[in-house]
């Protein structure tokens, strides 16, 4: 038997879920960016912790100075691509290992983001600026369907982000089917083979890092609008959330989704699952200070599983079985 207290608590959880879905989808865009480097290019790129904040910072400052929301988001994406290019050049032209190259860019982006924002934190008022997404446009807070259909569609963050996710997936699906996209996949899969087939692997690495960080910054632009502010620390630990989404998506949908577009979709859905689980964990009353520790622990365990599988669970070849 449920008493009034638990029902009230459950209602609290359900009210929080739409927000979790919206945030999860926004992080899903970011996770798709991580997927491109981590899975397609086979590079662990830590630039994203910086470029997410860069995207948010550029978007908010552009909006505050009166630019259109789409122009602002485009600028944010270009800034992210620039960040990816820096990492790519550090990695290819200067021969710095990818992880270190990403860390260097990430660190320098902290200063860059601070300079863009002018201070550690910039707030934007959803009532005074025409934002594409906001936590205010979630659930009952937006227009209701009956009043005005256009407004309902436009002021519906979950719907808008979902459409953006689908568009991003379709564009990437097209791109990775082109000659250039195929050569990029070959670069990540086997770079010796790629070079033997006349593929400029260095160029492809830089381009892949640019596309990835462009998406991450775009996600940062959405996130800063959604939460109503850009913060110099907003990207801290982003790579872990991105990896978590990639891993969760693959774990849940990996066996049924084989097509590249569906794989990208599973990564985006991985972001949603991550935020839903997070919401439940918060609802259960966990100390929120521990969330990052928990996220890191979960990702660490999931990253270890393939290794453990190969090391401890492969069947040893039995000697003398065939005489």
């Amino acid at each position: 038997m449920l008493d009034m207290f638990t029902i009230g608590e459950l209602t609290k959880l359900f009210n929080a879920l739409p927000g979790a879905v919206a945030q999860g989808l926004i992080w899903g865009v970011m996770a798709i960016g991580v997927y491109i480097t981590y899975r397609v290019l086979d590079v662990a790129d830590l630039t994203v912790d910086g470029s997410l904040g860069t995207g948010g910072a550029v978007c908010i400052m552009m909006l505050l100075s009166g630019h259109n929301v789409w122009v602002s988001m485009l600028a944010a994406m270009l800034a992210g691509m620039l960040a990816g290019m820096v990492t790519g050049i550090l990695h290819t032209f200067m021969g710095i290992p990818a992880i270190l190259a990403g860390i260097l860019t990430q660190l320098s982006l902290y200063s860059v983001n601070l300079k863009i924002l002018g201070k550690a934190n910039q707030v934007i008022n959803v009532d005074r600026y025409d934002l594409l997404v906001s936590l205010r446009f979630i659930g009952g807070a937006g227009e209701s369907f009956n009043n005005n259909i256009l407004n309902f569609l436009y002021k519906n963050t979950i719907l808008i982000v979902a459409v953006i996710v689908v568009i991003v997936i379709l564009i990437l699906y097209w791109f990775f089917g082109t000659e250039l996209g195929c050569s990029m996949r070959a670069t990540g899969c086997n770079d010796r083979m790629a070079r033997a087939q006349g593929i400029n692997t260095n160029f492809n690495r830089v381009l892949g890092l640019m596309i990835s960080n462009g998406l991450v910054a775009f996600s940062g632009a959405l996130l800063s609008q959604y939460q109503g502010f850009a913060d110099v620390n907003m990207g801290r630990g982003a790579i872990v959330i991105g990896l978590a989404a990639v891993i969760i998506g693959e774990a849940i949908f990996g066996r049924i989704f084989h097509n590249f577009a569906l794989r990208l979709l599973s990564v985006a859905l991985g972001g949603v699952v991550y935020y839903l689980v997070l919401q439940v964990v918060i609802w259960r009353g966990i100390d929120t200070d521990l969330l990052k520790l928990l996220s890191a622990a979960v990702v660490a365990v999931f990253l270890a599983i393939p290794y453990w599988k190969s090391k401890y669970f492969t069947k040893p070849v039995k000697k003398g079985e065939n005489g």
Partner: protein
Amino acid sequence: MLEIKEISKTFNIGTVNEKRALNQLSLTLNDGDFVTVIGGNGAGKSTMLNAIAGVWPVDEGKIIIDGRDVTMLSEYKRAKFLGRVFQDPMTGTAATMGIEENLALALRRGGRRTLKRGIKNEERKLYRELLAKLGLGLETRLTSKVGLLSGGQRQALTLLMATLERPKLLLLDEHTAALDPKTARKVLELTQEFVNEQKLTAMMVTHNMKDAIAMGNRLIMMHEGRIIYDVAGEEKKNLTVDDLLRKFGEVSGEEFANDRMMLAN
């Protein structure tokens, strides 16, 4: 077709592992030459092929392919002139991509990679025909991931990829060494077919002296980063394994005591 002028390469300069892998090596290949390359371990056979392919820059000397000085050209740019098959069957193909995707990458070797479709429909017909000629049943598995194929199948596919866009020079780096004898035989037969059909200029490194004598029109023996014996035409045809062993002893002043080579006979 290929002109190598006094190239040298030393690895790990200034360390205890310093190794002069190529020592003022010169070699000229004529159009249509099919050269087999033999020599002991560390003689510089693979190093010579890698130098031609531009895996790293040489310390000195010149490499000219089809009249063009490629010494300073990066590996991916030289790929335009070269077809390559490696010792490890995993090296020549992209495992997570389909058979047709691998072939499509090879068809575009030397061209610009644009935003056009990665595989055109009309290409598939060509791929199916060429795969059928391999006789390995791959023509019905165009979309299968290459990682699912056996070593021999992958090597045959790599060979097809290397010659899909006719190379000025085909570089075969012990491409049958990792295969079982029967599969190795099959891949060698295919190699011979491809070379004959397209009248390719080719270099084949091998540890098997019988193959080295039986195949191609010219044979070179390497030792300590140099060519110590170069024989062609009738003289080559009449060679025996014993001749080669004696020759090696004569020129290098050492026994040709390489287990792999002895076993390979």
